[in-house]
């Protein structure tokens, strides 16, 4: 049971971590809690379903499952990056120098707008992600049973996080992002195009959320317009737990939250799983207000 709950927890934790990265990257760079980020994840799931449906209708004889997954991921990442870019340009950039509360309210507005837009465009009924694979069991040891999708999600999440780490630490745009996060004015003085860097940050965060959306849609097989809300809250929590603004923190926070939920539900009570997870979150924040890996942000706030 322990190992099974560990796998369950890592699967859901990996997804929380991918979404949490978007929150933390945006916060790190412009100190905005982008409440519409959960909606981007939801849009990613829809984009994946639509891409597969389109491919299966357009291509005679259908497409192989692996190609379908790749296509769904690609479509979701592209669509979400476009949404992220547009969202920043229309709803946040004009408020760059406004009081801090204004972009926050704007973010809530974008969230409500996107949720209702998808509700009207796609309907209120649940959408079902096609069952692509016949046999999804990777290995089965009696008490422990791990599906291919679980492995794919865990591996996929770690790969994306590693890739993101490389981009941020070892590329020009990553260096620019870190510089902008430290001090926007100084970065601009050094010749960094700050607006451009912020756009890229939004796009990277959004494409990770889009990938997370497809993974979850595939895992559960079910999507509706309201899934972004709960996932967004959980991922935001994960980001705060790890220390908001800190990228490794978001990854660790997501994993910890996933494991807490899974073990809490398995060993204590499934009804109280959210209560348990959030109680521990409050405890951690009482002892370490800046989160597990967070630095003291007093001078920024």
């Amino acid at each position, binding site marked *: *049971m322990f190992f099974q709950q560990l796998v*369950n927890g890592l699967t859901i934790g990996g997804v929380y971590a991918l979404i949490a990265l978007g929150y933390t990257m945006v916060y790190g760079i412009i100190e905005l809690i982008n409440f519409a980020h959960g909606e981007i994840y939801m849009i990613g799931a829809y984009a994946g379903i639509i891409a597969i449906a389109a491919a299966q209708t357009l291509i005679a004889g259908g497409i192989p499952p692996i190609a379908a997954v790749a296509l769904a991921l690609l479509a979701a990442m592209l669509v979400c990056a476009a949404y992220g870019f547009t969202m920043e340009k229309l709803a946040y950039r004009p408020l760059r120098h406004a009081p801090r509360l204004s972009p926050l309210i704007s973010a809530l507005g974008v969230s409500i707008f996107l949720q209702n837009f998808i509700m009207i465009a796609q309907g209120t009924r649940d959408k*079902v992600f096609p069952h692509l694979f016949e046999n999804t069991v990777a290995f089965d040891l009696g008490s422990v*049973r791990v599906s291919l999708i679980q492995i794919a999600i865990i591996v996929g999440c770690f790969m994306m996080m590693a890739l993101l780490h490389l981009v941020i630490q070892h590329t020009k745009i990553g260096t620019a992002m870190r510089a902008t996060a430290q001090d926007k004015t100084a970065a601009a003085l050094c010749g960094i195009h700050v607006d451009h860097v912020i756009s890229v940050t939004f796009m990277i965060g959004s494409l990770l959320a889009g990938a997370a959306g497809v993974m979850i849609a595939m895992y559960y*097989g*079910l999507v509706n317009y309201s*899934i972004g809300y709960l996932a967004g809250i959980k991922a935001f929590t994960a980001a705060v737990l790890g220390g908001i603004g800190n990228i490794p923190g978001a990854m660790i926070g997501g994993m910890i939250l996933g494991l807490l939920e899974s073990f809490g539900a398995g060993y204590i*009570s*499934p009804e109280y799983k959210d209560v348990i997870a959030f109680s521990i979150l409050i405890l951690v924040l009482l002892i370490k207000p800046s989160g597990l890996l967070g630095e003291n942000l007093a001078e920024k706030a």
Partner: protein
Amino acid sequence: MIRIAGMMLMMIMFGSVPAWGGETILIGAAGPITGDQGKMGTDIANGVKLAAEDWNARGGVLGRKIEVVEGDDQHDPKQAVSVANKFVNLGVVGSIGHFNSSCSIPASQILFDAGEITQITPASTNPQFTDRGLSSTFRVCGRDEQQGGAAAQHVLKKMSVRRVAVLHDKTTYGQGLADEFVKSLKAGGIEPVYYGGIVQGDKDFNAVLTMLKQKDPQVLFFGGIYPEAGLLTRQAREQGMNLTFISGDGTIDPEYLKIAGPAAEGALLTFTRDQRKIPEAQAVITRYEAKYGPFGAYSIYAYSAADILLQAIQRAGSTDSKKINAELHKGEFKTSIGTVRFDARGDISESPFVIWRVDGGKFVQLEETP
């Protein structure tokens, strides 16, 4: 203003409904006619309209023409109250509706207070609808505990199992259903190996299923609606659990089959009898489908509810609500869903629930009696 005017009208009309009826007899048809449950309300309204039409073709009731007024509650209890007030103001002789228990219950109070105006619901199963002892409320569908009982009887009598796990979604409907199932199960000598709630809207039940797996249940009963039911069925199969999934009428929806996929095969659900197998219903079904297209889960029930109301008016020989209610309580009614008798509470005396099974990606009724 409208509210005050409505209250004044209500006061003027209180007790004077019968004398006010005029030439036509008005009956209300209420339910969520628009919105995401719009199909349910439309099905009810169509059933009532068809019944009125059939009666009018035979010369109406008490020699007067029957007219149907629709009331759209948008599955909102507040709207249901204003629909009931509208019906009172228009002077309806009876109301057929609503769909949701949360709408039927507040509406029944308004109708009762306005002179015990008869209300027959074709679809609301919550016990509270008739348990408040109002003389004017009736239902032609079953009650939640009859449903839980039917499932438990099936487990006890038709399946040789000992280990039963029970989950519910913590809603009035879901937990109520699960509780009634457990009650009957315990009376039959089986103690559930697990009883607990999940969160409605949640997508990941792997943690609770992993824990259940330790107890190795042969049956998983779920009180709730189809999205969670579908996910539970699917995730239980993915975890390699070999069990029979059982749930109630909230799960009997094509979406359940889509969400659960192949894992749904063999799942058992409690629901009313297959209307295509009720001999009395066939003529009504044919006429209904010719006029409105395929009938919904409660179309024929709405037709029968209206039919029963009109029969009671005929027998009472008047539109006096108290006399109509008395007729409903004492008589026996031949309808398109079979012969109906009401007990003292206003519920039908025989449990209408039978067991259905998912077979080859379709819902199929198993037997006539559970």
